[in-house]
């Protein structure tokens, strides 16, 4: 009996012999004990900060020279900038999915992964936001995108999907940041009370804003949290739908497809979950958090990745079907001459392999628990999702209605430098986040612990029924 019990418990979301304070200290020791961060942290931070320097350099050179330093050319006016914008935005989506949609669906296992997934969202949207702003060519005039009374007596064109994009992405960033910050307040209070360092105490006391865990406060806090989740859910679905409208509203072959919005959203969640695992697995290993981010979490995330991956794959198949079924010559020509064959064909087939075929390994339970396999598949998915945007953007733009559009797109050194730079920015921000903010939502994990394991009888019930 005892043995069965143990196995069931290990299958739960919090393992080992835990108490409220052991949960506290397993998370906040990352902040309160700065000596915990060793060589690995230093190396990654150094890589991140160097690449961020490269980002600064490429932005400087871009502003000095103009966007001619990029590989964008006339048929392909969108290149790496928009590919990377869509890629980063997509990565962000898993954070909101985990924090909002899973909350609404009462998937309490999200409690231990939502914090760093949300952090990832915010950092990814920051990286994404750089691209369209710099792509305007004169970023100091980027405020022209917003409606404000001006002496030119002009207003933005709200019928354009690009304006919808401005509204969607800026709203998404602001709401995600608010959601993240209010989620941190009770944890700041815990850190305030546990911190022994004078500076730590002052900083966390300021951030906690006098949070005292009052029931009246929790009451309104819970109402707000649920409402924010309810508002973020349609928001996250709308953001990537609107990003896909940038393409789907136009008449460019390969873009004018009604399947784009759902397939973009699924792709975003797919890429995002892959990124959550890419960070989650090393973090839980390096900081010994396996008792809070358990194999069960990883297993479920793999399943979501598999499910969304299948939706994405269905999108690819539907694109093939529509290009034939539409009877549109240019759509069919794009499919046969640019995607299936032609100079870019290897990228298309690599995309099908990375996003369509490789994730199918998650059907086998054994591989959903094998960290090395998961990390490798997640890497393939990130590559695949990047290729998807490459297939959509330059491949359609260089195969258009006019013969004059038949031209190749090649990225320049600065395109690659800037992409590496935003990755560096992302790594830097994540590293700082791990070191100075709680990577796991402490109060929600305690709530989960109370509901699942804090009360012994419930543990036994769950153990007996599952």
């Amino acid at each position, binding site marked *: 009996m005892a043995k069965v019990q143990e196995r069931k418990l290990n299958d739960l979301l919090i393992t080992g012999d835990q108490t*409220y*304070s052991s949960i*506290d200290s397993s998370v906040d020791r990352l902040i309160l004990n700065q000596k915990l961060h060793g060589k690995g942290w230093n190396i990654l931070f150094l890589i991140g900060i160097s690449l961020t320097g490269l980002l600064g350099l490429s932005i400087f050179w871009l502003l000095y020279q103009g966007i001619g330093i990029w590989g964008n050319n006339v048929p392909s006016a969108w290149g790496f900038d928009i590919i990377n914008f869509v890629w980063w935005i997509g990565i962000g989506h898993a954070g909101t999915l985990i924090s909002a949609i899973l909350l609404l669906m009462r998937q309490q296992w999200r409690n231990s992964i939502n914090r760093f997934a949300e952090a990832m969202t915010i950092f990814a949207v920051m990286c994404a936001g750089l691209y369209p702003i710099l792509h305007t060519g004169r970023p100091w005039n980027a405020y022209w995108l917003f*409606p404000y009374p001006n002496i030119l*007596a*002009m*207003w*933005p*064109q*709200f*019928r354009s*999907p690009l*304006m*919808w994009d401005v*509204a*969607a992405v800026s*709203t998404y960033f*602001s*709401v995600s940041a*608010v*959601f993240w*910050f*209010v989620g941190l307040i*009770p944890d700041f*209070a*815990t850190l305030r*009370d*546990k911190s022994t360092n004078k500076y730590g105490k002052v900083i966390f*006391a300021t951030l906690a*804003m*006098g*949070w*005292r*865990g*009052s*029931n*009246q*406060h*929790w*009451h*309104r*806090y*819970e*109402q*707000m949290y649920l*409402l*924010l989740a309810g*508002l*973020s859910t*349609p*928001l996250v679905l*709308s953001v990537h739908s*609107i990003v896909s409208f940038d393409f789907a509203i136009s008449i460019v072959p390969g873009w004018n497809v009604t399947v784009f919005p759902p397939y973009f959203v699924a792709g975003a969640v797919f890429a995002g979950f892959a990124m959550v695992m890419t960070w989650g697995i090393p973090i839980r290993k390096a900081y010994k958090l396996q008792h809070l981010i358990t194999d069960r979490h990883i297993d479920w995330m793999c399943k979501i990745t598999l499910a969304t991956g299948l939706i994405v794959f269905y999108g690819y198949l539907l694109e093939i079907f529509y290009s034939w079924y539409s009877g549109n010559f240019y759509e069919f020509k794009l499919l046969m001459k640019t995607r299936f064959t032609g100079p870019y064909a290897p990228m298309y087939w690599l995309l099908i392999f990375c996003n369509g075929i490789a994730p199918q390994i998650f059907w086998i339970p054994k591989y959903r628990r094998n960290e090395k396999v998961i990390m490798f598949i997640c890497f393939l998915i990130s590559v695949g999702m990047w290729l998807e945007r490459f297939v959509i953007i330059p491949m359609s733009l260089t195969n258009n209605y006019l013969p004059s559009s038949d031209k190749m797109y090649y990225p320049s050194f600065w395109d690659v430098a800037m992409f590496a730079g935003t990755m560096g920015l992302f790594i830097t921000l994540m590293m700082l986040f791990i070191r100075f903010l709680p990577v796991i939502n402490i*109060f*929600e994990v*305690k*709530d989960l612990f*109370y509901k699942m394991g*804090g*009360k012994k009888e419930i543990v036994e019930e769950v153990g007996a029924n599952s």
Partner: protein
Amino acid sequence: MAHDWSDPSGLWGLVGEFEKPEDLMKAAEAAKHKGFRKMDAYSPFPIHGLSEAIGFRDNRVPWTVFIFGITGVTIGYSLQYYTAVIDYPMNVGGRPLNSVPAFIPVAYEATILCAAFSAAIGMFVYNKLPKPYHPIFNTKNFDRATQDRFFLAVEAEDPAYDAKVIEKVMKENGAVEVSECDY
């Protein structure tokens, strides 16, 4: 009766410390039945059913969000209507000036933006946060209220305040410590 802040001392209330959320819940329920009203519980995480046990109800946050959501959609749509129909009419592909389908995304995002910000700001305003000082922080062991202990406080301002009765109720329901808390 508000506290006279010119007097730095004075009794704020009686605070009981509990080890388990279940005990806190029982004590809160019992104290409510004894007729105490000015009381509040303090816990490291939200406990469902505790508001009902204490007898606390407040729906101002959801209503605020609803009102600001409506405001957001109104502002979002009328901004587009004003700019595209009244102030700067421009014929785009022969579409009507008031292009309803094309105006939905921005109106929608404006709704979400207003509603989400009002939810967060509303929570702060109604909770009277930020509040750097509160008498409850003087309670012994209170730094554990954000960690692993659960507290129930009855304020001295409660008309039914009676330290002996409160202490008895708390002790009966498993309080590990009951202490007085000063301003």
